[in-house]
């Protein structure tokens, strides 16, 4: 199984890096987060289902999309974990796929409140 760092105390989204990348355009960050929150639930459930079925092709495709989306909002660790799953899918590896999914789901679960926090702050 691929290793992942213990980052339980670190933020899931590197907001500072993201703001630099978008030229401090908070409206754009808000827009990206809205798109992510709209699209990610379906992708996560499709991923879970594909892992359960051992459909590595689908795992690769879904994780490729998720990697890109997570990279866009500087969710570096989640993107790396999605990238690991994508690689396993590409290699057709079913062994360890479920184990690799768990930390990814945990990281995304940690990310969502941070995204909510940003959007709430943006509204105020």
């Amino acid at each position, binding site marked *: 199984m691929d290793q992942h760092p213990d980052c339980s105390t670190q933020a899931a989204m590197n907001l500072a890096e993201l703001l630099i*990348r*978008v*030229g401090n*355009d908070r409206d*754009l960050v808000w*827009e*990206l987060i809205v*798109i*992510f929150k709209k*699209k990610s639930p379906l992708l996560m459930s499709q991923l879970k289902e594909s892992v359960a079925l051992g459909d590595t092709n689908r795992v690769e*495709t879904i994780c*490729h*999309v998720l*990697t*890109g*989306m997570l*990279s*866009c*909002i*500087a969710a570096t660790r989640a*993107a790396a974990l999605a*990238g690991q799953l994508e690689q396993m899918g590409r290699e057709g590896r079913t062994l360890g796929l479920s184990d690799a999914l768990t930390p990814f789901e945990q990281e995304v679960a940690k990310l969502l409140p941070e995204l909510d926090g940003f959007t709430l702050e943006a509204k105020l």
Partner: protein
Amino acid sequence: MKILIADDDEMSRRLLERTLEHEGYGVISVENGRVALEQLSLPDGPRMALLDWMMPELDGPGVCQEIRRQHDRPYVHLVLLTSRVSKQDVVAGLEAGADDYLTKPWDPAELTARLRVGQRILQLEDRLVEARETMRFKASHDPLTSLFNRGVILDLLARELSRTRREKGCTVVMLGDLDNFKSVNDSYGHAVGDEVLREIARRLLDSVRSYDFVGRYGGEEFLVVLNNCDSAQAIARAEEVRMGIANHQVQTMRGPLHITMSLGVLASRNWDRRVVEEILIETDLALYKAKADGRNCVRLAEPPVLCAVPRADSVTS
């Protein structure tokens, strides 16, 4: 400058759009490779493109391959965007026809710097194409009149000769010579003579169809090749050319001049095995006859030689 973004990921697309719009690009955004190819294949399509590697219907390398097969359009600078970082992938992307390669997540400063490199390459390509076209024009056209030069008009005549023979069609050849042109140069100077030649060239072009050929054969001699022109119409067409010159004075820096042209005409449905040189000799003989008959007239180079129009005055001013 227009730039195409092709990415099936809405977030990535939005991020790219905003970054590139901020840099002053006109952004066209699409979400699959097939539509990207359609956009890039348009006559006035974008000359730069950022292509995601994995896309529905046609992937980024696939778009690159298709674009590189199109040799008849201006160069397009193609940049692949992907999270794939292995050397094997980089090589595959470049071999597919990409000019550059950026890994996700991309850095905005690096992205815009690389696109500026692309712009410089495109500008260089444009200058090369422009220089090539200028050279091509100079090599094939007369610098004073911008008509085809002697070598090219003779090549075109030879080509028409072959086509006429092959298709059993008809081509008309006219050899025109300005009457008493030496006196224009002697009386008014060569600058006025050049003005006259330029104006005559313009009128010759105006008097023929877009697919006919007009060339400067010598000093004040012009060769006109009329494709698919019925021999019965040869005299009438030559008369139009003659009158287009004789009926309107040429405006020059030294005042209006009355210029006329004599023309020898050869028309045939079947030139058998006659070569260009023989055809030119026959046409030249007809021109000589037109000169001998008093100038400003048309003579046909087939027996019986016809006089279409009575002579008129030559150059007067």
